[in-house]
């Protein structure tokens, strides 16, 4: 099986779907000739033509609005928002339109739309190239929200997202496009070629939406996490020696509550790790629902390790980023509780 970085795996997913389904189109800012600022669509315009893969004006609201109209016609647009930090001008079309089209028309019109967007920090991008807005989408009824943590899942999930008949928000942690970053920013960069989940089949396959993956079985505590933080959590486990069960959620909505419940009921302890700011982050929903379903098995308060409730600072990136030390410290607190 070929090994490939995550952006190439995503490109491969779009390549497969552009090839299989002539109703799939891909567009966004700098997506066409240039192939995207993170190269995710490189070569696709040359291969499929500029009527299938093309550049758009700089208007996220226009991109998503046009995509909704294309859905009404019968296409399956895959649009790129250059950075998740720039999705806000498109939120109205997502929240008021894409998410409710099926409902308000009783399925006369639907929005099989995929909205890709690089998210997360760790690349010194400052407050406008580092955000993780996933929790906002999970509050919107009618949207699905996905965030992969590795190339294999990224491709399989993106194919599933494109095939899904509802709008899917597809967040791509940009720090792990090239390798499984574990938060040790001062160590050499590890490429995906050295990671088993960097092996990606060439052709079509799906990783179903709504199913989490247990990355590591363990008995001491359960970690609920996703995206880059899966790797940070693995580092924290290695460093603390805590026998943690690591659940990579992959899809935030719909959430794989069965896997979560089974694990927390087994371990009796739960730590939630995400990069997004804390208040009303997706960790809040996770903590709220875990205490609902696992109250009598819980032996310690559920802890959240998250970005601070501030904009993402430029110079103090590593003070902001919830690295393995902070995750490890939470393990210790929860185990001692």
């Amino acid at each position: 099986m070929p090994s490939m970085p995550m952006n190439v795996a995503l490109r491969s997913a779009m390549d497969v779907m552009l090839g299989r389904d002539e109703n799939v189109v891909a567009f966004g800012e700098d997506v066409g000739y240039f192939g995207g600022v993170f190269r995710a669509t490189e070569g696709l315009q040359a291969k499929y033509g500029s009527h299938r893969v093309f550049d758009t004006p700089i208007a996220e609201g226009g991109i998503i609005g046009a995509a909704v109209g294309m859905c009404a016609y019968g296409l399956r647009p895959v649009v790129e928002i250059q950075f998740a930090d720039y999705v806000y001008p498109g939120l109205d079309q997502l929240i008021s339109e894409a998410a409710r089209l099926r409902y308000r028309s009783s399925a006369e019109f639907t929005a099989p739309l995929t909205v890709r967007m690089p998210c997360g920090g760790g690349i010194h991008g400052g407050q406008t190239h580092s955000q993780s807005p996933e929790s906002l989408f999970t509050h919107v009824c009618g949207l699905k929200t996905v965030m992969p943590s590795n190339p294999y899942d990224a491709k399989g999930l993106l194919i599933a997202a494109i095939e899904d008949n509802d709008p899917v928000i597809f967040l791509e942690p940009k720090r792990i496009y090239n390798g499984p970053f574990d938060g040790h920013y001062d160590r050499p960069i590890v490429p995906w070629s050295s990671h088993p989940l960097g092996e990606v089949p060439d052709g079509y396959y799906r990783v179903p939406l709504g199913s989490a993956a247990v990355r590591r079985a363990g008995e001491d505590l359960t970690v609920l996490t996703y995206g880059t933080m899966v790797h940070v959590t693995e580092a924290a486990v290695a460093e603390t020696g805590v026998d943690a069960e690591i659940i990579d959620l992959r899809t935030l909505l719909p959430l794989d509550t069965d896997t979560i419940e089974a694990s927390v009921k087994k371990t009796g302890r739960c730590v939630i790790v995400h990069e997004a700011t804390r208040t009303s982050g997706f960790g809040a929903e996770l903590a709220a629902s875990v205490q609902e379903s696992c109250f009598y098995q819980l032996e310690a308060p559920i802890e959240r390790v998250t970005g601070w409730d501030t904009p993402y600072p430029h110079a103090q990136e590593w003070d902001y980023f919830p690295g393995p030390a902070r995750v490890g410290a939470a393990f210790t607190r929860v185990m001692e509780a």
Partner: protein
Amino acid sequence: MTEAAPLRFKVPEPPARPGDQPDFSYVGLSEAGSVRRPAVDVDPAAMRDLAYAMIRVLDDNGVAIGPWSPDVTADDLRRGLRAMIKTRVYDDRMQNAQRQGKTSFYIRCTGEEAFAVGQALELGPRDMFFPTYRQQGWLIARDWPLVDMMCQVFSNENDRLHGRQLPVMYSARDVGFFTISGNLGTQYIQAVGWAMAAAIKGDTCISSGVVGEGATAEADFHHALTFASTYQAPVILNVVNNQWAISSFQGIAGGGSSTFAARALGFAIPALRVDGNDYLAVISATRWAAERARANCGPTLIEWVTYRVAPHSSSDDPSRYRPADEWKAWPLGDPIDRLKAHLIVRGEWSDDRHAEQQVEIRDEVQSALKQAESYGTLLDGRVASAKSIFEDVFEVMPQHLQRQRRQLEG
């Protein structure tokens, strides 16, 4: 030079408030027949003047004149007349039903019937219309069942939308009518996206998007013009300028010193400004734009100049912000009266036939109403089941919604 003089803040004011004499002198008119008709493949740069003129076909005597006078049969015109009358009767009946508490909300289009009816009859069966809440005329012109419209307004057991949507927010894919949004403007860029899709697929059908003059201020309007211009999308971009947006007059939307048609100029999109109460002008301008779009010459923006005779909605009392009789002074008259006069002049219609038809339509609407009410109204609470509110959030109901549905059942 004038540096020392203080700046002044200007808020546009309508020419007349309650108690004032209505004044429509600000509406730039042209004589019927006086505006030239360029070829449909004209370079937009060669027709900028049309953004400031007004295309009118019917003169004061009801005669169709000038280059925009369309080739249209009397039968087709009678269909249009019938649909306009029916729309008005329907509106009155449903407004009444709202007063009786049979529904929570209603919106009339009184005085603006020509636009929606004309486009419904002029555009093709596979074209797609992206309406606002004020184009019920399209559904009626295309003979979408009145009973279905009423059931939607009553949110009753037979409502195709299962009571989920606000009254008047129809969806009717089978007659090319996109699901109406309660959010202003959003459908405008969607219409462009639909047209882009048609072009991507090498189809032959086009789309038509609608926005009120007030809602042109929303971002979607700008996105629509930008995308339509860049990709030369086969779309008709309609601005229905009925002079009012709830309580704010068209000057607040920025029309005080320009026309809404002119908004297209900066995008090199051809702009037509049309008498929206002149049914023949509606047919003719729509035909021009549709032909242009189908000939791969791209989008057209059309400003339809009309007047919102009705209150904004059943929740609105316009006498609080404009002269109660302002509509009487509207210089472009009533679209039904004007088409009727034209048909009579043409020897294709009479006062008697008109009166007969009126009665016939009243009966038709009345009997539809009876049937619709038999399926329930908001008053008697015969609405779609509570359980159904969990359906169609997603194609396949996820676990958490199944759980919530069970909870609701208790």
